[in-house]
């Protein structure tokens, strides 16, 4: 499996301001002064190897959308946030307008997870097949409503692809598009569902928009089991732990601290922080990643297990 992130931001898509871009450029130019960066190759190598991530890159601002490349011809996605727009366009650019099959797993139907669908061009083109899976009974209604007046000018009925909706049951195992898939109910306003994907002995867990109150040992154990020995856990770490259990309690999100603990308990191999807080800039997210890696380090001996900690960014690819 190859996991490719098309959208990693939580709640609402964001874009860098002109001032933020200027700050990166100024910092980079100062750091590169006197380094003889007189060719594109030298400059690119400097940016990629020597600049800190928040200076030379960005975590991006598209909302939730993750692709799972299985090695088969069908496309598999999790969620239809704004990242789905760029994904759809890349498919069309690389492979032409028609003949594509998409399998899309919906965590839930909040705006940031569906707002890419009206801009998902393959859905408008005859000859494509889009099958959308979810545990809510309102997936089709929500997507039809979004693609209709007064919220959108092009009605759902104008989408030319063959579009189907498939309701899944949490806790059941399914075989879909070459993947073994198991959904799990999560705590979030209106409910959300995580997905555990398995293929060829590799395990990916997609668990976003999930609040962990930690007040019920059985619930904790259920998530440990859901994450058990996963090669990668994509985890909602939008809030600090203090916020998640105080002023933002019941807002439906989790923290980096709980992510580390659950992955340690589950003996997962990698934790990927996801659904980033929209008010955080790149420096703040880089700090969050460094702190989370430090937390894993200082608790590793106690856990008796190492978890590699990453932070998702738009464009990140992880091979499992």
């Amino acid at each position: 499996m190859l996991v490719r992130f098309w959208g990693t931001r939580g709640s609402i898509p964001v874009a860098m301001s002109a001032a933020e871009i200027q700050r990166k450029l100024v910092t980079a130019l100062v750091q590169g002064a006197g380094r003889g960066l007189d060719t594109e190759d030298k400059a690119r190598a400097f940016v990629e190897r020597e600049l800190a991530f928040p200076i030379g890159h960005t975590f991006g601002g598209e909302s939730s959308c993750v692709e799972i490349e299985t090695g088969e011809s069908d496309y598999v996605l999790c969620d239809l946030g704004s990242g789905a727009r760029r994904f759809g366009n890349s498919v069309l650019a690389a492979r032409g307008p028609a003949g594509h099959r998409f399998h899309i797993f919906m965590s839930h139907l909040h705006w940031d997870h569906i707002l890419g669908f009206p801009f998902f061009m393959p859905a408008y083109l005859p000859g494509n097949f889009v099958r959308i899976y979810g545990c809510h009974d309102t997936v089709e209604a929500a997507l039809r409503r979004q693609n209709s007046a007064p919220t959108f000018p092009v009605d759902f009925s104008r989408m030319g692809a063959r579009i189907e909706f498939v309701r899944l049951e949490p806790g059941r195992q399914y075989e879909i598009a070459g993947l073994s898939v198991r959904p799990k109910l999560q705590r979030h306003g209106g409910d959300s569902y995580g997905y555990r994907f398995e293929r060829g002995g590799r395990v990916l867990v997609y668990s976003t928009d999930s609040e962990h109150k930690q007040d019920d040992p059985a619930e904790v154990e259920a998530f440990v089991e859901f994450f058990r020995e996963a090669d990668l856990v994509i985890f909602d770490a939008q809030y600090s732990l203090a916020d998640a259990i105080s002023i933002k309690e019941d807002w439906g999100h989790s923290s980096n601290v709980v992510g580390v603990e659950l992955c340690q308990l589950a003996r997962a191999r990698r934790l990927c922080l996801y659904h980033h807080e929209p008010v955080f800039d790149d420096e703040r997210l880089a700090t969050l990643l460094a702190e989370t890696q430090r937390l894993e380090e200082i608790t590793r001996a106690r856990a008796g297990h190492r978890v590699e900690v990453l932070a998702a960014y738009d464009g990140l690819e992880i091979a499992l």
Partner: protein
Amino acid sequence: MQLEPKRFADAIALFPHGRIDHATADDFRAALTPHLASCRAGGDRLVLDFSAVEYISSVGLRVLILASKQVKKQGGALAVCGLQPVVREIFEISRFNLVLDVFPALREALARLSPPARAAVDTV
């Protein structure tokens, strides 16, 4: 978990120890709860001296925040002090240092919460 309360004038200091995690958080909560009722406006101040706490997980931190919420509602004052380096880092990473009153040591905590208690600790 025994918290071995010590009174300093109008303040009570509690001394949890060891690890506060999934296995022990319920014991910690049970031991802490009886001390919360008197921590109210005009009542006792409460200090949790963490100098013997080696580790605290999110479940343990949740116990602290719930205790802090209860005490605030009652108009009382609760502080934490004496964090070991690892626990201090966990507080910082979880941002608990921003939502709880944290002091380097018991004397500083008592000095902020209650001058009479600060004076009393010097006589011990």
